[in-house]
């Protein structure tokens, strides 16, 4: 099962290496790991997606919490969360296919951010499934390259979903 783990860490050199090293040393699999600053310059947030049974993920959570510069660890499993991925994707787009591609992009609420003779680059964000879906839809046209951030997430405060 997939778990989204959010770790608030001290913004210090070596923390990322410590976290990544712990995952490697304990043979835990990381699906994705995103690090970014927070509103507090002293703290960063790592969002880590791991796959494993409950015992494994429980260990991941505890081992993370044990790392001295890791301030707080949350596992969002079982909670309503907003989880988002951001992707840049460059699709081969010869003139004759362009209208099709543009309408696909619109359907997925993507944004064309660069365009050339033979390609378009699209920025698209959303839940992972949407991103994966978009990639699948683009495959027939030819994908030149993909860059993805990996998942970031936050628990929902309200009970209503805006999606």
């Amino acid at each position, binding site marked *: 099962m997939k778990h989204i783990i959010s770790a608030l*860490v*001290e913004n*210090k*050199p*070596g923390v990322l*290496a*410590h976290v990544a*090293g712990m995952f490697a*040393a304990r043979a835990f699999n990381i699906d994705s790991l995103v690090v970014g600053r927070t509103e507090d310059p002293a703290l960063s947030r790592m969002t880590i997606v791991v796959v494993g049974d409950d*015992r494994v993920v*429980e*260990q991941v959570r*505890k*081992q993370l*919490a*044990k*790392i*001295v*510069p*890791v*301030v*707080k660890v949350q596992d969002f499993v079982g909670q309503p969360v907003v989880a988002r991925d951001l992707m840049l994707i460059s699709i081969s787009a010869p003139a004759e296919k362009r209208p099709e591609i543009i309408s696909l992009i619109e359907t997925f609420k993507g944004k064309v951010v660069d365009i050339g003779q033979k390609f378009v680059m699209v920025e698209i964000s959303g839940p992972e499934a949407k991103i994966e879906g978009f990639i699948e839809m683009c495959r027939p046209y030819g994908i030149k390259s993909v860059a993805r951030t990996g998942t970031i997430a936050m628990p929902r405060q309200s009970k209503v979903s805006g999606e």
Partner: protein
Amino acid sequence: MPKKRSSAKSAGKSITKTGAQIIVDTLIEQGVETMFGYPGGVVLPLFDKLYDAPIRFIVPRHEQGGCHMADGFARATGKVGVIVVTSGPGACNLVTGLATAMMDSVPIVALTGQVRTELIGNDAFQEADTTGITRPVTKYNSIVKDVKELARAIREAFHIASTGRPGPVLIDIPVDIQVAKCSDDDGTELKLPGYKIMRGGHARQISSAAAAINASERPVLYVGGGVISANASEELRALAEKAHIPVTMTLLGLGSYDQSKAESLDMLGMHGTAYANYAVQECDLLIAVGARFDDRVTGKVKTFAPHAKIVHIDIDPASISKNVHVDIPVVGDAKHILGELAKEVEYGERKAWFSRIAGWKKKHPLGYDRNSSVIKPQYVIEQVCEQTGGEAIITTGVGQNQMWAAQFYRFHRARQLISSGGLGTMGYGLPAAIGAQVGRPDATVIDIDGDHSFNMTLTELRTAVEYELPIKVCILNNGYMGMVRQWQELFYNKRYSKTYLANPEYAEVAEALGAAGIMVEKKADVPKAIRKMLAEKKPCVVDFRVEREENVWPMVPAGASISEMDGLDILESMA
């Protein structure tokens, strides 16, 4: 956990000091009276300040030895062991020692010199990525890049090393930071927002554990090194007595419960006693305290303590339910929790249970062929135990010698057995003995060692001579890497591949290094040699030429349940 310290003299705003002076002052403020270390280029400023500092300083012959000394010192005294070395090769030589301390949760503060800040990353002379290399073998490490942060970094290191589940902490200090001047340091406040220790232990969990004990017909206490680091032996004794529960110990737990007591089941696990292993497999309640369900203890995990409800008391939440599912976890300080638990438990007669245990003890005692004309290694240890009244501090090598020391010396007190359990570091015994003797000058400190373990760090014998530390070394000299040979005998058709190496005359080596040396070939000479060794004022090495192909029994083969022990028939035939 920010914490104010009133004793911090170096926090004065007006005094200007160099980084090196700040290091020395902070060490003294932290109560350091003794430390270990080896000099080098980028720690010259620090060593210059140490030249006339009021700190006893022991220089080993190799940094690994120094780190094991700091470790032995820490285990023998309960204080933090301190080691300082240079960058690059000095720091790299610490790795085995740090890993040894990490696995066994030993508090060490290691200070390493580093090349000048502006050279870092340039493959400078004697540069190594010390924090990178040591990150997996330390509880925490960091590099100081601003002299203002130096004092705080060292205070944090001591705090982290010695609290919670203890462990080694390394601080890397570039040479320019040691010479930099500083008049207003960062203050005394620790800045560790991510470091939390759960001392208390949840009251409801403690009550559930007590209820489980009161309801149990066949309980067993399974205790590890955590009881010793928590200084909780007294609370353990009180609980075991009040509730009437038998106690088995891990290798690192030995000494936490007096083995002369009837409730002691001695050591469990791969080379544990049959009665401990049977009791664990048959118990209905297993109360683990400061132990971590290591594979050398559990054997096949799936069938470990199959009928038992499991209570696990540990300061490290990550230890709980890591290897074995725990029914009642209690996170916190063992001393506090055992004390609270004792208040809520009632005495249970448990007649049937104790009589079954007595039956196993009677049927399966530890033993060896006492009639043999050759020196049996177990006999040497029994003699050492007898002549020291079971009161010596024992360090060990790794292998058969270590297991026999654990089986045949009878420990009464915490901090009496000092052995590399988790990492199993050959070469640990001699330097650990030196560190222990430094910390406990009045104690009799004996390294019960294997010949090949001793070979690895024997250069430190000169350190013992240098500092007039009257440690004793009993080499159980079987010529072999005995434990590996035993596996080759049992599982590889006696093909003794690369496990025999011809040894030097250890008595002569000892004499050449300035220690006393004795060689014993005849069984009849063993008691006399030990007497002589104990009377010796110098460090003394006794080379016991023991049975070459003796095996450690019982033995739980790899992948078996701990009740499936080999060698019980052999033990029975010798009884």
